């Protein structure tokens, strides 16, 4: 069949593409274009002035407070990603290499928290760290403290721990998938050549699982960078992150054009970072494939 050799299929087969292209245009591309255009408008009181201006971007780069919040969020996202890896990688390694029985069950149990309500998990951490929460109740019950300690909640630590909690499955899945794909005979070969477990991990397992690790790192970084609900719920006054800054432009600050500009800046950062995944990470074993 010469059909196979051509780069294009018959024109009729392109009809299959209509629904997804319509979806893509109406829910992704056009909204992004509208946002991009709005980022060049300006806000006059409650009205949006529709003349194009660079005012919003100028404001972002000249006023030191906005880049500072962005860098604060980037630092937080970096720490969250690193802690998530420190927690998820050994877990994935253990499930993949140390478990003979019940491996599938353990795998499932590691990713179930991913699909459990995000809001419920936030409520869980508020109830652990809060004034009447678990930690304070225990401390008071055993008599270490008299009144509730308030420093558990409403700070960066509370945000970081909750974000880490959210991110762990996102690191676990790509790392586990990468580990599972390493042929066991390569590790056996390393061991036969005299490498102990540590050396074969360092020289064989770690390099081969690096794409999964990078994917996990980037996913958790992006989740942590863009989140605004967790800082709002657990961050208190220390917790104004880039996401909150963006959200407030659509809420009480009521400056949509500036919000659009901030949103577009976050979009560009995210796309650059996601581009790195495509280059160095593994797209297999993602959250969308089977």
């Amino acid at each position: 069949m010469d059909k196979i050799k051509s780069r294009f299929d018959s024109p009729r087969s392109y009809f299959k593409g209509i629904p997804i292209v319509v979806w893509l245009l109406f829910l992704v591309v056009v909204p992004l274009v509208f946002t991009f255009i709005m980022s060049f408008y300006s806000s006059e009181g409650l009205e949006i002035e529709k003349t194009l201006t660079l005012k919003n971007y100028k404001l972002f780069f000249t006023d030191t407070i906005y880049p500072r919040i962005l860098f604060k969020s980037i630092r937080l996202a970096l720490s969250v990603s690193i802690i998530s890896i420190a927690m998820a990688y050994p877990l994935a390694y253990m499930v993949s290499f140390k478990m003979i029985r019940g491996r599938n069950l353990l795998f499932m149990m590691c990713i179930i928290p991913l699909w459990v309500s995000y809001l419920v998990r936030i409520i869980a951490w508020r109830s652990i760290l809060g004034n009447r929460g678990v930690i304070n109740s225990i401390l008071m019950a055993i008599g270490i403290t008299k009144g509730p300690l308030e420093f558990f909640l409403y700070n960066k630590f509370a945000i970081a721990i909750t974000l880490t909690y959210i991110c762990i499955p996102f690191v676990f899945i790509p790392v586990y998938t990468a580990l599972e794909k390493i042929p066991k005979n390569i590790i056996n070969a390393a061991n036969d050549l005299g490498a102990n477990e540590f050396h074969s991990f360092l020289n064989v397992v770690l390099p081969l699982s690096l794409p999964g690790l990078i994917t996990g790192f980037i996913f958790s970084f992006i989740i942590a960078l863009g989140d605004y609900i967790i800082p709002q719920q657990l961050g208190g006054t220390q917790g104004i992150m880039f996401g909150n800054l963006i959200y407030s432009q659509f809420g009480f600050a009521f400056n949509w054009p500036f919000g659009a500009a901030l949103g577009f800046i976050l979009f560009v950062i995210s796309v650059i970072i996601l581009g790195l995944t495509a280059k160095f990470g593994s797209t297999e074993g993602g959250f969308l494939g089977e």
Partner: protein
Amino acid sequence: MSSHIKASKLEKQGTVLKLYGLFVFIFLYLPLFVVIIFSFSPTKTIVGMSGVTIKWYKELFQDKEILKVLLHSIEVGVSAVTIALIFGTAGAFFITKVRFPGKGVFRALVMLPFVLPGIIMGLTLLIFIKNLNIPLSMLTILMGHVSFTTPLVMFQVSSRLQRMGPSFQDAAQDLGATPVKTLWYVTLPMIRTAMIGAALLAFTVSFDEIVISYFLTGTWTTLPVYLYGMLRFGLSPKVFAVSGLILLFSLSLILLMTRYIGRSAEEVRVKR
């Protein structure tokens, strides 16, 4: 180093690792248990909890507002999943069966709503609907949910299609089946479980979604957005009861999902 020492050392390393794994595991599950325990506690506390009560759950079922928003969430979820199944499955056929240039870029674009921070999807859609003068309503929330459920369905189904390969369809057509018959009798039965799994997954995600919905909600709200509003007044027993209910609901959906997701087409066929 004698092999004896080596073996015992290996085992020891394994033990440390397993203990660490256990610690992470407790970290993952303890918070969920805390929520469940709180939801049954009559005194709003855990330490010194006296007995177990289902009072808060009973109150929940008398709360008309909560029942209403629960129904809203189910409505949005079912509608979003239905639309996503149509768009996503068609998209899956398009991306696996049709050759066109720039497929990599297209695939990346389709994935955007799932991999971008939710806040970006929320604000771009908000700006879009305001420009079209659509008032905030169920429709706008539904748009948000269709945006992230569609890629979910599409990639589940397309990875199934990819693993199946074209040989089954080719065989059917060689035996004289029309394209429609091939689709109905060969292809659809083979991707059916992937579609069911994707639908359950998409519903679970939609049922819990707040980051995007929060931007697109007016007076017509879903359960998570309503629950979020309740949080402004602190953690009440009712909040825990709603959380417990959501947990139960999500877990049942996940367990149901595991029956469909990750199973290959071949396995499904052999079973039949």
